[in-house]
């Protein structure tokens, strides 16, 4: 009872699905029950259907393209025939490395399905035959589906043409190119870290050597250098050097000597008169002999400025320089 019920249900489902599929098809389509058959492409004919291959060109190079056309004539429904999918047919897939659908042509009652193909190999190649089933509406029941074949066609496939690059004319070489460049052996290149270090070390050694030699040749120079490290002495000596180049340097000599003494002994107001300077120096406990020498020079400067004086500019500068250079010496 139960098994019979299942059979009835399955029959119902089958008929209802066929009926609904038939509803989607129109009058120019074959019955839905045949639509999913292999090699069936929805063609309807009363028996005189023809299916043919045509290829353009017939002779091609291995790397060339081929236009293949499947023509289906004498079908009642050429517009409703489905295009065969050659990519899914093994005989085509193994012969052609590229199968591209090209827009079809449907003139009058003939359906032309077009493909662009690229071959896998050269030599004798055959386009395989194609089985093409169609629906015969007037055939007795159970023999409605008939079969036609598109006959195989042969192609002559040449070897791929490898383009030979044109022979290029040799460029005219200038004279300099005909000359061997001379020395091509490796050369020492300056500029490495070693060269920089070497140069710096050499320069340092040269500088230190120069200073040492200078000190040997100028033993008094060390004392002079030490003295010049004192800012007051350096300024005074530079000022005296400038004073030497002017015609009446007495005022400038006195000024630089006074500035030096003020700086050296921290005299806040040394004054401009020799007596004032003498008093200030005594207050700073400077030895008497040094005070006497300095005051004597200030007086000589005053005499040179305001009265008759036999001392020339050069002697005043020299005397001032001597006082400054010997100021630090013990009495």
């Amino acid at each position, binding site marked *: 009872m139960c098994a019979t019920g299942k059979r009835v249900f399955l029959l119902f489902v089958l008929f209802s699905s066929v009926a609904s599929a038939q509803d989607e098809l129109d009058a120019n389509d074959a019955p839905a029950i045949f639509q999913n058959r292999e090699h069936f492409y929805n063609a309807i004919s009363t028996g005189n259907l023809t299916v043919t291959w045509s290829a353009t060109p017939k002779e091609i190079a291995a790397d060339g393209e081929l236009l293949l056309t499947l023509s289906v004539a004498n079908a009642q429904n050429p517009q409703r025939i489905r295009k065969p999918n050659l990519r899914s047919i093994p005989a085509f897939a193994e012969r052609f490395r590229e199968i591209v659908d090209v827009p079809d042509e449907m003139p009058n009652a003939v359906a032309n399905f077009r493909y662009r193909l690229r071959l896998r190999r050269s030599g004798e190649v055959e386009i395989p035959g194609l089985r093409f089933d169609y629906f015969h509406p007037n055939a007795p029941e159970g023999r409605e589906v008939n079969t036609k074949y598109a006959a195989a066609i042969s192609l002559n496939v040449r070897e791929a043409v490898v383009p030979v*690059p044109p022979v*290029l004319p*040799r*460029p005219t*070489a*200038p004279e*300099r*190119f*005909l*000359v*061997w*460049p*001379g*020395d*091509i*052996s*490796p*050369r020492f*290149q*300056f*500029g490495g870290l070693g*060269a*920089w270090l070497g*140069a*710096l070390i050499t*320069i*340092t050694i*040269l*500088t230190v050597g*120069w*200073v040492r030699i*200078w*000190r040997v040749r*100028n033993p008094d*120079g060390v004392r*002079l*250098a030490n003295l*010049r*490290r004192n800012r007051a002495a*350096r300024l005074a000596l*530079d000022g005296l050097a400038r004073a030497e180049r002017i015609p009446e340097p007495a005022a400038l000599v006195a000024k630089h000597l006074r500035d030096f003494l003020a700086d050296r002994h921290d005299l806040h107001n040394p004054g401009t008169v020799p007596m004032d300077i003498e008093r200030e120096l005594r207050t700073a406990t400077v030895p008497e002999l040094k005070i006497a020498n300095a005051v004597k020079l200030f007086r000589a400067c005053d005499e040179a400025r305001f009265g008759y004086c036999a001392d020339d500019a050069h002697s005043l500068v020299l005397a001032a320089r001597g006082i400054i250079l010997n100021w630090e010496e013990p009495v």
Partner: protein
Amino acid sequence: MILIAMFGLGSPSDAAISFADGRYAEAARDLDAQWQRGATPGVALARARAHFLGGNLPMAVVALHDGLRLAPYDLELQTDLRIVRDAVNYPEPLDPRHRLRPNATNTLRHRVAPFDTFFLAVGFALVAAFGFAKWYTVRHRWALLFIATGAIGFATAAILFARIRASPEPLPVVLVADTILREGNGHTYPARMAETLPRGAELRELARRGGWLQVELPGGTVGWVPLISVNIDGRKSM
């Protein structure tokens, strides 16, 4: 050959003999091997001339660029590169972005050699040392000017040296055959420009993908060329 032996190499190498006998392709092969063993500007120059005379224009360009990477200041290499570039059949496109002729080699590193800056630095260091010695011994004020001039000059020369030596220019890729510049990495992509890229053209490599090379033209246009149409392998990496 005797002249080469007397004034050139001392003992003429196989390459020099081949070159002197007019067997330029053979000389170029020998010089390629010599370049791998020891790269010098002289080898690069000889290599470029042998390739050029042997008809291998792209390799002549490659050899000159190899040499200029080693010695960008070398005037002989610069002159030869200019001559070799003139032999390349560069088109003159209307769009400046499609310009293929490379820029002239006139950057700082092409004008000043590292050892020039080295000697300049040594000269300024000597001036500074002289000023220092004078200042240390006799405390003359003008010595300070020498010290300052020498120190500034030394620092400038050292910076110049570092800039010249640092980050050499990347080597261009050189086409070995006339090639179409495409918009993508495949033959199905359309051409980027009407003109084909000539054999010996120099391009800047941007990327590689699937046997294709993304390149930039001197004019700025970017496109793709097949890897097989470009000389990359066989070059000594510097």
